[in-house]
């Protein structure tokens, strides 16, 4: 148990620090790799939170899918001129204030709330993945199907939107 909580702290810190890295680095590519690290840590946190399936899904979809896509997008939307890819920042004051205020308000709420009931240890199902599978195919069938349709629509939509058209503004 001690080992678990230590791992949790480690990955939690890693997630937050690499997220901060995304925030503070000016190099776009670094930011993306920081984010990969952060998501990787978050996946680990999921695993520690007894949600290994979600953890792996996180790895598969976020790290293996979305972020790779993002890096592709980056490479497609910047001119490859050998320069270091940097992004500028603006609204710095507002962004930081907003983040800090959000963080403080939400943490104030969290620490003032009572989580006793939620923290009571309960017998968890052995085969978590079976629960998820059965639930998805019974209880959550309609959301599942809707999500499928949503994905299809997004797929087609993304293809249509990014299609090259002739009337490109110079």
């Amino acid at each position: 148990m001690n080992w678990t909580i230590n791992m949790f702290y480690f990955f939690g810190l890693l997630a937050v620090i690499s997220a901060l890295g995304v925030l503070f680095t000016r190099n776009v590519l670094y930011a993306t790799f920081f984010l990969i690290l952060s998501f990787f840590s978050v996946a680990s946190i999921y695993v520690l939170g007894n949600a290994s399936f979600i953890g792996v899904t996180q790895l598969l979809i976020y790290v293996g899918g979305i972020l790779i896509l993002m890096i592709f997008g980056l490479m497609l939307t910047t001119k490859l001129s050998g320069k270091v890819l940097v992004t500028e920042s603006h609204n710095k004051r507002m962004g930081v204030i907003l983040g800090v205020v959000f963080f403080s308000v939400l943490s104030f709420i969290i620490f003032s709330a009572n989580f006793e009931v939620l923290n009571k240890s309960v017998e968890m199902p052995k085969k978590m993945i079976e629960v998820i599978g059965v639930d998805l195919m019974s209880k959550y069938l309609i959301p599942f199907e809707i999500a499928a349709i949503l994905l299809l629509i997004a797929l087609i939509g993304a293809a249509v939107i990014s299609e090259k058209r002739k009337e490109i503004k110079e």
Partner: protein
Amino acid sequence: MSTLVFFLPFLLMYTVFAVYAERKISAFIQDRYGPMEVGKYGWYQTVADLLKLIQKEDIIPKNANKTLFMLAPIVIFTAIFCGFAILPLTSSWVGSLSQNGVYFLIAIVSLDVVGILMAGWGANSKYSLLGSLRAVAQIISYEIPVTLSVLCVVMISQSLSLQEISYQQSVLINVFPDLESTKNFLFGIKTMAIDVTAWGGFFTWNIFRAPVLIPVAVIYFISTLAESNRAPFDLPEAESELVAGFHTEYSGFRWAIIMLSEYGMMLLVAILGVILFFGSWNTPLPNIGNITLANWTTGQPGTIIGNLWSILWLISKAMLWVMAQMWVRWTYPRLRIDQLMNLSWKYLTPFAIFLIFMSGLWRLLMI
């Protein structure tokens, strides 16, 4: 622990000999000798090469992004080596008894794309960048048929756990905690009522339990060739076009690690393929009446003899798979990039989806 204790040293050894094997096989296919000078039949050629590589200077291009450039081989190797962590080596020796083994494997393997991108971008070379983009596009595209073919197996075996999948193909099926009363039938067709549970051997391998998996195995084989950037899908490192693709700028030890990763990838997909389709660590020999060949050549789980048999069968089957990969490499010409994508999206993926459907139907025959 199997990963560190067994696979790391094994991977190093295997790479050395795989490179040698590759040279020799290519030589045989091209009707020549291959390395012959260093040691008997050139046995030590690869070792000598390795020594040379370690001695070589670690060159980092001036305009490269140093961090990414240096980090990339490690990331690639880590991602692939992570995959070994959940492989069941024997009936009792398994890296991580994860319930989501296959799923994790697919996820973690795709991470090497990150490393490839880092390498390609970090080198700040056009060849590298184009190579890495090609690699990534290829790997992401071929992940789809790989995942779908794996999904076929998952539908047949109703599990994501690699060890459970292994046991299902074993004569020891009833030893596994959740499978005490499970029976295997010939071709998985229950109505035929030919109980092969006690036969073991190749009768209980997945391609025999559900023959629908044979085309799935073919798809898996083709797609994993592309996944590991092997010929005929080695466009990312097409010498004639891109010098050496994303690892053009690497040299010495880092280049060695990249090559190590590539061969590691080959081994990984080979072992996974063996586990999924060809009986995992199980013996191909069935029990024939009183001659319980299967039981003899499997041993009891947990015993040393059992572990040794398991390792033998698993590794030998994987080696055969790797040999097949090499065979293909030296036989077929390289595809064009559009043919590559066509193959994935227009043929393999739809066919794999169809096979998922067929697998579902087959599964209905099994219960």
